[in-house]
């Protein structure tokens, strides 16, 4: 995981170095004081409007916006300045404007409330848009009621930290994403909170992103949604009660650890949907109370290890187009169905998991059950083919079916078998690799 995180850090250091070099150059040429602070407030200050202060500022300056509500339409920041709010000033988009657009490198935006940005079916209007820049810092802002919240396009080395992006979206088609990354390199998204948008955190062509400690809940579609974002790291995020859970697609070398996926309910809701995710690691995550905790479709050589699957409808739905997956050291507790698949063969391995449904024994007392465990139940397969049969869940008939299949297995895949099922729940600390 360090191998993945490092490039982002390296890039940031490089960015800072470049910033310092630029400042030094500016100091030499101008011979003036390096950074001025231009204060904006509504009455009695140097500047009465943010637009005026930004126009007057030069690279390296700080525009300090004091409390108040500013209705200035669309602001464009095209020089390397710090735009900082004090006492939560509100930049009001009046439901018409893209409030702040960053078009220069080394910009810092901090402490602002961006409220009521415009909406459009034609262009992606965002409360805060960052386009084709590098090394920006978007920190501790509040975005309220926007179409897109914070939007990055073709940028690199930026950090988005501690922002609170809240919306009141009710319709998927007419709501954008809270934090949206498109075509970015090595961005860091951390400690943000996103709710009420289409997707909480959205990444597309976001190479080497670090997404950590964010909370994304109550979004209309996905809490976290990414595609074509190779070598990204997702750690310690909480993704809860989103319309369709989390979907990650078409990426390789992904590291997801320490995340919580919870309470994603619905016919097409997944705690975590892995669609063509290859050579990746999903470890030490908690999946609790999801309709389907992990749904694996066409993902190869991906490891699922040391995760807790607790009280989900389906803990694992593995389609047979996935190969070389290793499912090891996980806890399966209180799930309605542990594993289901859609074919009679499987090229994935299951080893040393704890299954609470295991009924075997451990005569030599080495903590490993002496009989293999087959987690796929015939009734689960029946429900796959005939969804209406769910009405017979836990009926005596379904148990008769399961028992018969266990004695004479013909339909359930023999390949999905844990040869070394553990007798007790696995307990690990957060420092366990």
């Amino acid at each position, binding site marked *: 995981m360090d191998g993945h995180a490092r490039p982002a850090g390296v890039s940031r250091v490089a960015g800072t170095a470049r910033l310092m070099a630029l400042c030094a150059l500016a100091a030499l040429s101008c011979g003036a004081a390096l950074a001025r602070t231009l204060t904006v407030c509504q009455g009695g200050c140097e500047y009465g409007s943010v637009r005026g202060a930004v126009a007057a500022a030069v690279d390296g300056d700080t525009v300090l916006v004091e409390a108040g509500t500013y209705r200035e339409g669309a602001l464009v920041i095209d020089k390397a300045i710090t735009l900082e709010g004090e006492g939560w000033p509100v930049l009001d988009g009046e439901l018409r404007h893209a409030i702040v657009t960053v078009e220069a490198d080394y910009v810092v935006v901090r402490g602002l409330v961006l409220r009521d940005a415009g909406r459009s079916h034609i262009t992606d209007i965002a409360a805060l848009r960052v386009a084709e820049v590098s090394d920006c810092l978007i920190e501790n802002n509040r975005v309220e009621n926007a179409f897109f919240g914070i939007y990055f396009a073709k940028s690199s080395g930026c950090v988005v930290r501690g922002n609170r992006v809240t919306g009141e979206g009710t319709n998927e088609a007419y709501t954008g994403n809270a934090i949206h990354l498109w075509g970015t390199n090595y961005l860091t998204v951390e400690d943000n909170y996103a709710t009420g948008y289409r997707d909480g955190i959205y990444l597309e062509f976001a190479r080497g992103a670090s997404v950590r400690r964010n909370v994304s809940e109550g979004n209309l579609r996905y809490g976290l949604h990414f595609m074509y974002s190779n070598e990204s790291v997702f750690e310690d995020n909480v993704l809860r009660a989103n319309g369709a859970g989390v979907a990650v697609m078409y990426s390789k070398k992904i590291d997801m650890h320490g995340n919580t996926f919870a309470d994603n*309910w*619905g*016919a097409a*809701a997944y705690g975590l949907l892995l669609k063509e995710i290859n050579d990746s690691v999903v470890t030490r995550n908690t999946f609790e*109370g*999801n*309709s*389907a905790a992990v749904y694996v479709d066409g993902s190869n050589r991906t490891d699922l290890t040391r995760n807790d699957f607790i*009280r*989900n*409808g*389906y803990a694992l739905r593995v389609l047979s187009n996935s190969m070389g997956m290793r499912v090891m050291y996980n806890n399966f507790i*209180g799930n*309605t*169905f542990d594993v289901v698949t859609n074919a009679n063969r499987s090229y994935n391995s299951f080893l040393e998991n704890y299954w*609470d449904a295991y009924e075997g024994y451990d005569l030599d007392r080495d903590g490993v059950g002496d009989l293999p465990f087959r987690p796929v139940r015939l009734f689960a397969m*029946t*429900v796959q083919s*005939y*969804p*209406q*049969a*769910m*009405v*017979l*869940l*836990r*009926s*005596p*008939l*379904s*148990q*008769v079916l399961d028992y018969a299949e266990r004695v004479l297995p013909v339909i359930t895949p023999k390949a999905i078998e844990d040869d070394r099922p553990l007798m007790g729940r696995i307990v690990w600390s957060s420092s366990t690799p």
Partner: protein
Amino acid sequence: MSTSLKVMKYAFFDLMRSRWVLIYTLFFLAATGGLLYFGDDAAQAVLSTLNLVLLIIPLVALMLGMNHYYYTRDFVQLILTQPVSRPSVFLGQYAGVALPLATAFVVGTGVPFVVYSLTHRIDAGLVLSLLGAGALVSLVFTALAFWLGLANEERARALGLALGVWLALTVVYDGLVLYFIVLAQAYPIEGAVMAASVLNPIDLSRILVLMRLDAAALMGYTGALFSTFLGSTTGALVALAALVVWVAAPVGFGLLAFRRKNF
């Protein structure tokens, strides 16, 4: 009504003398207590007890109800020579058997859960739905036992029929539902399947418990079938009405048979 109560009292003491109800209560106490003590997981214990509710309670209610009916037939004939109304005698007899059976289950299963809840956090709604389901099944199948007894002079024949009813409602019915689902899969049969489960008291009580136990999985299928229906006010009313009908209908038919019977 006071005749009902008196008859009920006699029926109750008869039942107590046979010690079956006591054994029945102790069985549930031991089973649930054991499950909670050794399994240490309330949801798992509810799940295991649900199997007892679905299989054992109907059988025991049918057997004990029928046994009581034939055992007290002479006594009932004697009472009926007195100036008492037939419905009150029948209802007294029924309540004297059904209520102790339901109570035995609720006490035998409820007490271990209450004790467990002193030291652990449990989902009270889940346990209550289990207790409600068990009590309901007890009432329904005792009524069926009385009705079958009244309809058949011969005891062996009634016992055979009771076993048939038990097998039909616990396993065969579900098998037919599954067969129907497989046959008619291409059609929108959600409503029919839902109706089929409401029509069988065992299925209905199972689903009421599952609504709490496997909510996540049930939501996963189609919200339309379970949550939207049973979760809605209409659905809850339909379920409640079905429960009332399932207790009232066999009692009513039994009552009718009892009034017309030429002892």
